[in-house]
């Protein structure tokens, strides 16, 4: 554990108790790993605290502040974890008023004005932060340059919110360092400690997703050699299974083939998991992915109704879905999928179509999870809900957890969506038990003991 910390990076916790009962967040915050590694290369001493880990709390953060007096605290948050992040920032600023508080992550990249209304938040870094945040630390800690010269940030001056010039997106992702996993103190506590990001962005236009906007509307990739070098690094740390966390791995066939060839030729004896669209695969490609070590693949199916798929601009067909899952069954690859209930134009009938699709996919060996459609900042649904016939009725961001309905849709109220979601979940769980298919809880442990009344 580091004693001298100049930059403290904190990942904000979910407000949902059940996620903490799991005894570990499923995966480490790789984005903070990238930031910390870039800062360490600039000879800053950093520390990462992932508040999703059960043993981490505000006292952990305050203890570091008291002992090391870092000059900068970077807090990363999503929409769901934003309010907890705000509360932490307020407590930190009250105890250490000279410490600069910087927010980053997908939520504040869009909602920076709201964040900067608070006195205790000094800066917001927009989009990917490797360059912007490093330059901001150079300004705050080493007095390099001016605040206006730091691209890609937002700050306040005389009551005005000021956006600096945008920092260009990093075109060649190979130039980024491989995240130094030694900077994650509790790496082995995670259910899936070995994660890799091989690309940024997504060329899709789904109305419920901000992945494309967050990446400037472009899809950028690391080279095959660069990715496999990170596989080798993780192997050297003792990991044999890797989770590729990209929104979708299978956009560029050329890069994918090159990656698979490289993996096969290096013969690392590692298994991996990735996400993919169902319309960018072939049987032969899946077969090659299996040969290269793929064991589990997640598909974004979203709905069992073609009308709903079209309404959310998913760009896939039901037949493509069925083909992809049948191929996985033939090749003995475990398919995983999430289905979304309560889409803007969902009705009871289309939700039933989705449940029927869930049954069908479970019979093919799929692990199925269900979530509730949620309009996150940056998504078309958030920007123009009326365009989708959606009336957002709940603005408590703690409820933006994809299991709590926050809007009235075209045909169903939020209360009705809640009930349909419950019924759908119940059916799916029964079907999974009947087919001996595990829930997709990714192997997390559940320990309720600390929360029992005594």
């Amino acid at each position, binding site marked *: 554990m580091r004693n001298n910390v100049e930059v403290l990076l904190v990942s904000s*916790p*979910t407000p949902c*108790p059940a996620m903490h009962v799991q005894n570990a967040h499923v995966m480490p915050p790789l984005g903070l790993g990238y930031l910390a590694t870039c800062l360490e290369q600039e000879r800053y001493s950093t520390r990462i605290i992932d508040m999703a880990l*059960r043993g981490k709390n505000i006292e952990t953060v305050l203890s570091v502040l008291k002992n090391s007096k870092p000059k900068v605290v970077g807090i990363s948050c999503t929409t769901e974890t934003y309010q907890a992040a705000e509360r*932490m920032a307020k407590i930190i600023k009250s105890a250490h008023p000279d410490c600069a508080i910087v927010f980053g992550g997908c939520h504040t990249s869009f909602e920076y004005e709201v964040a900067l209304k608070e006195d205790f938040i000094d800066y917001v870094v927009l989009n990917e932060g490797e360059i912007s945040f490093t330059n901001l630390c150079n300004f705050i800690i080493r007095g390099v340059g001016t605040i206006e010269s730091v691209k890609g940030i937002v700050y306040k001056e005389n009551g005005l919110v000021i956006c600096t010039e945008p920092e260009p997106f990093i075109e060649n992702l190979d130039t980024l360092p491989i995240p130094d996993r030694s900077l994650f103190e509790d790496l082995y506590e995670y259910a899936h400690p070995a994660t890799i990001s091989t690309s940024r962005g997504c060329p899709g236009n789904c109305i419920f997703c901000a992945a494309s906007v967050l990446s400037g509307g472009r899809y950028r990739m690391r080279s095959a050699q660069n990715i496999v070098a990170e596989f080798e690094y993780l192997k050297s740390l003792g990991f044999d299974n890797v989770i590729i966390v990209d929104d979708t791995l299978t956009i560029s066939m050329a890069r994918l083939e090159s990656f698979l060839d490289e993996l096969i030729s290096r013969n690392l004896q590692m298994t991996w998991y990735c996400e993919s669209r169902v319309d960018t695969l072939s049987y032969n490609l899946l077969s090659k992915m299996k040969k290269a070590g793929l064991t589990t693949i997640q598909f974004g199916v979203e709905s069992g109704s073609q009308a709903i798929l079209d309404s959310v601009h998913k760009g896939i067909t039901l037949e493509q879905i069925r083909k992809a899952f049948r191929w996985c069954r033939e090749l003995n690859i475990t398919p995983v999928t999430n289905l979304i209930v309560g889409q803007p134009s969902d009705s009871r009938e289309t939700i039933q179509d989705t449940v029927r699709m869930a049954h069908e996919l479970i019979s093919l060996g799929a692990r199925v999870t269900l979530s509730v459609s949620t309009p996150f900042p940056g998504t078309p649904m958030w920007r123009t809900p009326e365009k989708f016939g959606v009336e957002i009725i709940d603005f408590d961001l703690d409820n933006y957890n994809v299991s709590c309905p926050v809007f009235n849709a075209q045909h169903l109220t939020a209360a009705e969506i809640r009930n349909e979601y*419950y019924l759908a979940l119940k059916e799916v769980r029964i079907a999974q038990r009947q087919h001996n298919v595990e829930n997709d809880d990714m192997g997390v442990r559940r320990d309720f003991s600390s*929360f029992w*009344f005594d």
Partner: protein
Amino acid sequence: MKNNNYSKEIEQYTPCRMMDIYFDNGNEITTGSFKLQGIGRDIWLMLNGKNTIRCIVEKLCTKLVTDEKDAILNELLMVLRMLNKRNAIVINWDPIYKMLRSQRLHYEE
């Protein structure tokens, strides 16, 4: 509220549902393992990690048109114990403090 059996501290507890997944027909809440009707339903809907026990008692007193706060508190704590034993709620939840927050409901000197 004055109660001889419980620490004053518990009035500030913020009980919270473990997860927000349940069926609500307007009269009855159904979860995977139990049902709650009437006041039980009202209590469940207030368990969001933000309403304090004090606040919940006051709302229940208003609903039930009573000023018997101690009696209401006793009933509420019974419900919370039951729900906690079923792993349905955390007695006193705050995501940034987590297990630093006391979960004890019985009287302390």
